[in-house]
């Protein structure tokens, strides 16, 4: 028995069994097992930020050298574009005033007016095919408080859908990216009364950077190049968030029409994202409570 207890294989087996049990326990809602990783996070996060910063600095330095000529040409083109945009801006200011008047009159709501938007930087990305969540530097301390079963949409700087927050700690939150096979969102064609369907991640399409569009009504004509936005069904995502464009459509099975979608957001190139949290108006305490 003593020999068995000292055997390295026996010890390894016990460790593996304990780790497997912890992995399963971590799937339970509100599992305290995850808290065991907090000390590791505490130690490694500053080191990882430092390495990331050093890598970014090197990459920027290299870009500054290699992109010099391209930047000069781009600068010239941008100056021309600015002049053109200034002209359009003066014209649009008039239209904006008119829109505000109409909005008041018709009680039109801005698409995202009911959401508070928090900015966050990406700390770490997926490390391989299966270890694929993204870590952000905003957590409960920054107002990202996630209740069980709830989730918040995450957008890039151009307000395209990136994914959704699925877990938050005091200082960090974890995002399930759009391409992950567990991701799903109700989408629609970006036009008046556009057809609705589901946009979901798919393991096979992930390697091409594509999502699967399913639940398409066979009567509806979906074509490559169509822009897809969130439909707002389900209540998790607001209506009108840009997702991407249809890449191909498969009508071979009339009972199961599917399509592929290329998302606008390029997760690999993102540095900063925005988290959308539904705005809850604080109710004022009643006079009896106050006094």
């Amino acid at each position, binding site marked *: 028995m003593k020999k068995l207890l000292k055997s390295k294989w026996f010890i390894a087996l016990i460790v593996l069994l304990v780790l497997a049990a912890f992995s399963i326990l971590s799937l339970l809602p509100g599992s305290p*097992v995850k808290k065991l990783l907090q000390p590791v996070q505490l130690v*490694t996060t500053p080191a990882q930020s430092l*390495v990331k910063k050093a890598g970014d600095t090197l990459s920027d330095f290299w870009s500054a050298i290699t992109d010099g000529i391209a930047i000069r040409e781009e600068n010239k083109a941008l100056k021309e574009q600015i002049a053109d945009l200034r002209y359009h801006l003066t014209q649009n200011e008039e239209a904006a005033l008119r829109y505000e008047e109409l909005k008041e009159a018709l009680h039109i709501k801005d698409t995202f007016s009911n959401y508070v938007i928090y900015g966050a930087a990406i700390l770490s990305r997926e*490390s391989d*095919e299966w270890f694929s*969540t993204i870590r952000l530097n905003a957590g409960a301390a920054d107002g990202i408080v996630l209740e069980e079963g709830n989730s918040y949409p995450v957008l890039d700087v151009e307000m395209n859908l990136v994914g959704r927050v699925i877990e938050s700690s005091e200082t960090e939150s974890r995002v399930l990216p759009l391409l992950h096979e567990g991701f799903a969102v109700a989408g629609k064609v970006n036009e008046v009364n556009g057809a609705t369907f589901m946009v979901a991640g798919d*393991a096979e399409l992930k390697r091409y950077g594509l999502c699967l569009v399913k639940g398409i009504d066979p009567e509806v004509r979906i074509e490559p190049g169509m822009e897809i936005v969130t439909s707002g069904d389900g209540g998790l995502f607001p209506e009108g968030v840009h997702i991407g464009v249809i890449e191909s459509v498969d009508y071979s099975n009339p009972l199961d029409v599917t399509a592929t979608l290329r998302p606008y957001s390029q997760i690999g190139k993102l540095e900063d994202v925005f988290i959308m949290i539904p705005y809850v108006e604080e109710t004022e305490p009643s006079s009896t409570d106050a006094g």
Partner: protein
Amino acid sequence: MRIITVKTKARARKIIVYAIYIILLSSIQVSFPDSFSFAGQTADLVFVFVVLSGYFNGFWDGAVVGFICGMVRDAFSPPAIVGLDGDIRVTAFIGAFTLFAAGIIGASFFTRRMHRNIPFSIVAVIFVTFCYKIAGYLLIYGWSTISGNNAGIYDPFTAFVYSFLPQLLLNTVASIPMIALLRFLGPVSFKGNANKDEIIEQDGDGTWLGI
């Protein structure tokens, strides 16, 4: 007394070298994954490092380095899977399980018979990567079937051609600079490995004293 001092110093040095590797490689892995990606797969530098640590430095090195690297991976980029209730959840300790297993398999892959020689270490990386992909695929297949979420499953041929092969290629390529790193920056010594197998088996620490 002198021997103990040398051993303690060497042990401290080894721990420091390992700590630097673990932090650097884990950070690079999750900070710039696109820099070493190909065909939708990413070279797993940490995984390769764990296997090689086990292969060259023995069972306990592989196990401890694997466990710590796994914990760091769980902290940085844990997998999210669909639970039995249909909700998606972030898991914990799957990284620790995977890399701990990788470390001990790497340490046991014909290490004595091949005297921990360098060319065979690449075969060890290929073998353990293959085991990892097969086990991962089977686990996902089983879990997806139980949870009723088929989005994570792809057919065996696709898995082999588009997931296993690119990953094997990338990890094999990554293992070459990694061996050079381990050789020149420590904590592995390749001087007279044939004679050191016994020491590794008994002690687990002595071999890298010649760095």
